[in-house]
């Protein structure tokens, strides 16, 4: 029987060292070509996060640069537009304004670019013509919390409902729940503004259930009182619900499709063979895996979502950065326009970073293989 005795070490051997010349190999450590075993990895996926950080820096640079060049390609001159709005400013006054805005320089484009960066790094975004020559940073800081609050909240809720719903629909494939998919898809193909206007016409004008817009009631000022919070919730309800309705379909469809793919994986079958209750298989095994691509596309779709708020703010008179941008663009208020665009891009990047970190911790594989 000796011939049958494989000469394989049964004890786990340390990893073969570099100049290992012996013929004993550790069968345990060698899988197929597709696998290499790893040991002693770090729990925090530094490499993955580092790679992402580099990418975000690059994107940030690109966004700032685009931001720098855009207004310089636009027609029309901010000061003359301003003068036209405030009729009959004297020519001297106009020159003064130009000086204030730094538009009178005859510096080279490159010098302007450097200046732009140095201002930016000092947090100086210039002053807004459209808002009484107030610093852009101040103008934006008034609006940003509302946008981030409402849109962030609605997006997360929509993501959560869509993902959970999609998981259930996918799990119970072929059941009546499937009808939810075409319904939510239909809702998400409706233009958002149309939905919003209809919602106002029905719920605010006819039924008077909700105020017709704005973030809180007339004569209130932001403070941490129950009344104020109640106002904010009451006012935010319709915009939030319409955002949720309009964006639910995508999340639901994505999750459901991913579930259908995951449900055919072996580990689901294993879990069921293990005698796991359905609920545990659904959430612990299937949904847990299916959600990963969702998280990734969540990160990527944030830019898209933020864009959508412009319309929301118009329809609901909501005090956000979207309308600010639209007005700034129309009025050629470049400093404000650049500021808003920068802030929007920044928030998208921040959201992406968060989603990335979440992804990295949800998917142990990123901790090793990188993006």
């Amino acid at each position, binding site marked *: 029987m000796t011939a049958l005795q*494989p000469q394989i070490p049964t004890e786990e051997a340390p990893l073969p060292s570099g100049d290992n010349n012996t013929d004993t190999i550790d*069968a345990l450590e*060698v899988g197929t070509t597709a696998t290499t075993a790893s040991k002693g990895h770090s729990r925090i996926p530094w490499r993955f996060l580092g790679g992402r950080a580099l990418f975000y820096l690059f994107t940030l640079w690109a966004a700032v640069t685009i931001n720098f060049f855009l207004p310089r390609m636009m027609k029309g001159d901010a000061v003359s537009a301003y003068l036209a709005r405030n009729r009959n400013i004297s020519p001297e006054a106009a020159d003064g304004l130009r000086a204030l805005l730094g538009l009178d320089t005859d510096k080279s484009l490159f010098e302007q670019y450097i200046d732009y960066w140095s201002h930016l790094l000092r947090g100086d975004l210039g002053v807004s013509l459209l808002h009484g020559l107030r610093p852009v940073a101040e103008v934006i800081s008034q609006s940003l919390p509302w946008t981030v609050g409402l849109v962030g909240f609605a997006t997360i809720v929509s993501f959560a409902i869509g993902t959970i719903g999609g998981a259930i629909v996918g799990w119970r494939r072929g059941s009546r729940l499937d009808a939810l998919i075409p319904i939510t898809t239909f809702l998400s193909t409706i233009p958002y503004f149309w939905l919003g206007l209809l919602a106002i016409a029905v719920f605010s004008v006819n039924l008077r259930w909700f105020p017709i817009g704005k973030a809180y009631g007339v004569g209130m000022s932001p403070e941490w009182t129950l009344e104020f919070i109640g106002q904010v919730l009451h006012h935010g309800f319709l915009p939030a619900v319409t955002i949720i309705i309009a964006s639910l379909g995508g999340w639901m469809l994505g999750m459901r499709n991913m579930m259908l793919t995951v449900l055919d994986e072996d*580990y689901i079958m294993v879990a069921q063979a293990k*005698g796991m209750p359905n609920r545990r298989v659904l959430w612990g095994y299937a949904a847990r895996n299916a959600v990963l691509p969702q998280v990734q596309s969540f990160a990527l779709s944030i830019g898209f979502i933020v864009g959508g708020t412009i319309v929301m703010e118009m329809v609901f008179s909501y005090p956000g950065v979207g309308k600010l941008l639209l007005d700034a663009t129309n009025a050629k208020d470049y400093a404000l326009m650049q500021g808003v665009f920068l802030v929007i891009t920044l928030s998208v990047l921040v959201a992406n970073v968060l989603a990335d970190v979440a992804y990295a911790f949800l998917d142990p*594989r990123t901790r090793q293989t990188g993006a």
Partner: protein
Amino acid sequence: MSDALLSVNNFSVMYDVEPPVEAVRNVDFTLRRGEILGLAGESGCGKTTLAYGIQRLLKAPAVITSGSVVFHDGSGEDVEISQLDVEELRRFRWDKISMVFQGAMNALNPVATIGSQLEDVYQVHRPAMSKSERRDAVVELLEIVKVGGERRRSFPHELSGGMRQRVMIAMALALRPQLMVMDEPTTALDVLVQREILRQISELRHKFGFSVIFITHDLPLLLEISDRIAIMREGEIVEINTAERIWSDPQDDYTKKLLSSFPRLTGEKGLVSR
């Protein structure tokens, strides 16, 4: 007490698609306590369907169209598997019959540590166990299959193919079942790793005394490890006999053909016409 563990009678499974596929047809066999039964046959002959079908693991469109599967429990109780309802079957699974699946690569949940996947089994089937008891049990299992208890916190992708397959075996062992079904547990593995795993399986079987249904299409391998071998073809068992008899005295033409399509490592040449 009879020494039969599982009696399969006139068992048929059909995939109710267009046109319907009768994947397993009128299969009869008895599995003895403690034996390794090899199941061989070419791809698509119904091995997997049979192995899954007896514990009703197949999903629609599969339907069991006839026959009975009786599990003779160690306690002396006979369980007719087709009579169990969903909840009973859920509790029955893994406790009495466990499985090692084809392709360990995908059989583990990629986002959960192997420790937690092992603990799952105890949590569901042994709710009385405390957290630390569970952890100790998991460590013990991992030690038994020589993966090492400290690997408890590893994720599947951090293990080699061989180690993953061992984790699967550990999982199958968790509740000390009386029957372990192994569906091509080594096909994706390297020859050396494969041999090591097989060695371990038979070691464990001696230690714990469970029966094994071992599926593969690698007949030479099966001949070495099985007590008895069933040869399947187009959904039917065409021959079932001890490994030695199958090797030395195959009865069915198909068995003969199968045997002749494997070149012998040490036998005379000539199979491949050079």
